[in-house]
């Protein structure tokens, strides 16, 4: 061994001997364990009884269909968001209980129920999960589903790579979940504070779980970025010029340029840390030439662009939802596109605002302060564009629109507090206080709002029926009440001097506000129940809520110019684009029929199990590296190489759907559309004629 390991190690089991020291009698852990086991068993039981294995294998596990991959991304993201919520619940309840020297302690904690070591793992896992395996997959999933549809593509540029990206993300989530039961997780914060993450200070496997989970997941994200950029550049339908690409696709492009250039830096940072922990090098150590600030710099060179990587798609979602429910084109398309690209560019030069207080000196701080504030300009442009889109429009308050408007409000408040933080003088006062936490939750919640809005908005496109509005609105209002109840007190506590990451709150005057936050968490819990109800009720009523191609009656972009649910080949015949808002243009001219003159053969990629196999192997690899089981790591790495080489010899990767089959499937879908067309919510007062209702039969001659 090159490094001095504390505790047992043996060639066969690596460090698994450490497990004997973990305290499995903790009821908190036990509850999580039981919940996972029960849910897992129920799912396995259901799949077996309903004979679903073949279906799951064929239609999901081996699929290369970008819509299904997107759905799986979103499901993973939502499940992990639920897990992250549990962590938040634990942080909040601990802080509400452990206030003042007289507060009781249970389960081995001096105060509250979480000993410091466990509490630190909880907030680290919470932050890492929410950003990397909840928010990111939901957004990536949305881009996966919608971008190819918006540009009129049959598929993505690299369907196989796409599936691989998904499975690597799943491995990342799986490693975090495994850490819950086998060993422990990092306690050094989701940013991995150096040198706390060095082996002497964190001798367990927690930091290793954190490293490998992020490392493997970020490879997946980089692949996804390559795929999306190439798709947007190469796969556009005829007539889809750069000036006509829908704004969500534009923001996806900007976002993925950020991902492509910033995730490698994260990879390097984590690799250097890995060398320190595994090989005994001196990158971020305290002595022998290590440099702690190098870690902080490198981490935030990724970390800051990352927040724009997640916020830009959210901006894109707002830019699609708001025009649809304002029944008006988006105001300022060109400025919207420029603003997205400007944000992507400037986001690269502001990383140091995360450590104004670490002694960089006034000139450096001033530079980064100004650079940070510059980002506010394009963001402001966007807010004004949305406002002008809504101004004097026919606004409709369907659930997606509620989420969108909530999101804009959060953007305004979060943006304001961000400007405050960007002033070094203020930052010196509130740094590491919960004011900062409230600020960035404000920003992340904006993304979550946009994502929930987008899920509701595009759900009928993917599944063919709308989500229940009544439960949806309850979900929205409870969630919003929770947001206000948690984060307004948190801002206040920040000003009152409460620092972040406290497992014990010494100052009893903070107690009332901490309790208010507890109420907020309760409201969040109710909202989650409403969400589950919304899903259940919608699935029950799916026949009643079935919709045709244009689910909202006033949508504008190309993804609505094909059936709902979208067939696996997307468009029966590639559409030709004539206008920036192609679908609105077609509707205006009564060209909404989805029946072309004739059908042609379609060329499609075949399903493959290779990405799944590579995912399983990388899970084995990650697990082996965490526990330093070298033989398993070597075997799985070599196996991955062999599988990749093997796949490169496979020539049987595509197939043709004959035109006659396309015609048969299209007939069914057209018949279904005819049956359900009336279900679409009526566009409010579409009297002017400019927005002909979607039912208007197309009388025009089509084709050449």
């Amino acid at each position: 061994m090159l490094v001095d390991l504390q505790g047992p190690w043996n060639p066969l089991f690596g460090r698994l001997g450490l497990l004997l020291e973990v305290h499995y009698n903790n009821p908190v852990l036990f509850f999580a364990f039981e919940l996972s086991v029960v849910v897992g068993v129920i799912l396995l039981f259901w799949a077996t009884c309903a004979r679903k294995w073949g279906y799951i294998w064929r239609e999901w596990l081996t699929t290369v269909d970008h819509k299904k991959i997107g759905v799986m991304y979103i499901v993973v993201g939502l499940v992990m968001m639920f897990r992250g919520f549990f962590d938040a619940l634990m942080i909040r309840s601990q802080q509400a209980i452990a206030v003042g020297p007289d507060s009781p302690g249970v389960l081995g904690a001096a105060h509250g129920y979480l000993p410091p070591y466990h509490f630190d793992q909880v907030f680290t896992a919470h932050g890492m999960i929410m950003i990397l395996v909840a928010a990111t997959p939901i957004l990536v999933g949305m881009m996966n589903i919608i971008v190819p549809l918006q540009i009129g593509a049959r598929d993505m540029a690299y369907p196989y790579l796409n599936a691989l990206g998904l499975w690597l993300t799943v491995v990342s989530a799986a490693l975090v979940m495994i850490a819950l039961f086998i060993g422990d997780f990092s306690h050094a914060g989701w940013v991995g504070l150096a040198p706390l993450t060095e082996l002497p200070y964190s001798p367990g496997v927690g930091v290793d779980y954190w490293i490998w989970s992020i490392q493997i997941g970020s490879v997946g994200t980089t692949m996804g970025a390559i795929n999306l950029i190439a798709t947007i550049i190469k796969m556009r339908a005829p007539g889809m010029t750069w000036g006509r690409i829908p704004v969500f696709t534009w923001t996806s492009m900007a976002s993925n340029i950020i991902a492509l250039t910033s995730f490698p830096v994260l990879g390097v940072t984590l690799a250097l840390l890995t060398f320190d922990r595994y090989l005994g090098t001196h990158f971020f150590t305290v002595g022998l030439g290590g440099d702690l600030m190098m870690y902080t710099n490198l981490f935030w060179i990724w970390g800051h662009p990352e927040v724009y990587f997640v916020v830009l798609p959210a901006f894109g979602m707002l830019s699609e939802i708001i025009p649809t429910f304002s029944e008006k084109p988006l105001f300022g398309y060109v400025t919207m596109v420029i603003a997205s690209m400007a944000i992507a560019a400037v986001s690269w030069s502001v990383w140091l605002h995360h450590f104004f207080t670490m002694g960089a000196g006034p000139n450096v701080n001033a530079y980064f302060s100004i650079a940070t504030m510059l980002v506010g300009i394009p963001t402001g442009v966007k807010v004004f564009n949305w406002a002008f889109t809504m101004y004097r429009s026919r606004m409709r308050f369907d659930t997606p629109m509620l989420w969108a408007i909530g999101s804009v409000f959060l953007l305004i408040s979060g943006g304001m507090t961000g400007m405050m933080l960007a002033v070094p003088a203020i930052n010196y006062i509130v740094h590491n206080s919960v004011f900062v936490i409230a600020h960035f939750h404000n920003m992340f919640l904006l993304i979550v709002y946009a994502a929930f809005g987008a899920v509701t908005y595009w759900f009928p496109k993917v599944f063919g029926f709308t989500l229940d509005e009544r439960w949806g609105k309850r979900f929205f209002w409870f969630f919003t009440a929770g947001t206000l109840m948690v984060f307004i007190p948190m801002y206040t506590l920040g000003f009152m001097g409460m620092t972040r990451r406290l497992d014990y709150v010494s100052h009893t005057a903070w107690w009332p506000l901490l309790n208010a936050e507890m109420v907020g968490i309760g409201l969040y819990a109710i909202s989650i129940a409403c969400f589950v109800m919304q899903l259940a009720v919608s699935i029950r009523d799916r026949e009643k809520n079935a919709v045709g191609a244009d689910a909202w009656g006033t949508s504008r972009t190309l993804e609505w110019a094909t059936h709902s649910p979208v067939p696996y080949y997307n468009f029966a015949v590639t559409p030709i684009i004539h206008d920036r808002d192609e679908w609105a243009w077609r509707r205006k001219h009564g060209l909404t029929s989805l029946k072309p003159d004739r059908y042609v053969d379609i060329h499609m990629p075949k399903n493959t199990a290779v990405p799944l196999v590579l995912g399983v192997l990388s899970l084995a690899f990650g697990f082996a590296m965490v526990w330093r089981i070298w033989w398993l790591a070597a075997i799985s790495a070599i196996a991955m190489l062999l599988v990749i080489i093997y796949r490169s010899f496979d020539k049987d990767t595509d197939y043709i759907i004959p035109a006659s089959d396309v015609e048969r499937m299209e007939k069914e879908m057209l018949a279904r559309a005819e049956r359900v067309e009336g279900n679409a919510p009526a566009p409010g007062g579409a009297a002017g004629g400019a927005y002909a209702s979607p039912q208007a039969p197309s009388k025009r001659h089509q084709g050449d």
Partner: protein
Amino acid sequence: MSSHSAESVDPGKVSLWDYEHHGHDPISTRTLGFWLYMLSDAMIFAALFAAYGVYVRNAAGGPTEADIIHPIYAMWESVVVFTSVFAYGLGMAALKKGNRAGVINGLLAAFALGLVFLGMEYKEFADLIADGAVPQRSGFLSAYWTIVLTHGLHMIFGLLWMLVMLFQVMREGFTQNVVYRLINLRLFWHFQAIIWVCVFTFVYLKGVL
């Protein structure tokens, strides 16, 4: 500003569907993806070079740049790398003519020269170990080893890839898949040479200034 593009087409006469649309040129789609991948790879090296610039002063009392860097030896390594790229280029010229033997010879020569390069690098690092200049000695040595060997690791992958391509060219000839892979491998191999120029300049030449 108008949010609506000017209406230039007559909706009565347009065609809505493109029946001739048979996807896109797969080779150019593949190479575009590879260019994008190389952009991300370039970021890896950019981060490493930036870090090296910081660590180069952190010798912690151990060997410094001047003690361990041999630019003349590295120059010979550069010659080998560039000859290998040149050989690969000759192979690709043969590909344009559809000359299978030419491609195979080019690949073989590039492969052999790549192996020579790795051998030279192996000797260099074996000497460092003998001198006690191991990566665990100081921040500077950690960074030095990492940057040079990251490039070396890329070279190893390139060689593996060449082996696979040799096999595929022999077995399958110039199918679409084989051709785009040969083109991507050329990008990759040239890229390694470019990175080596940076290593040579910023690590070896700068080291003796």
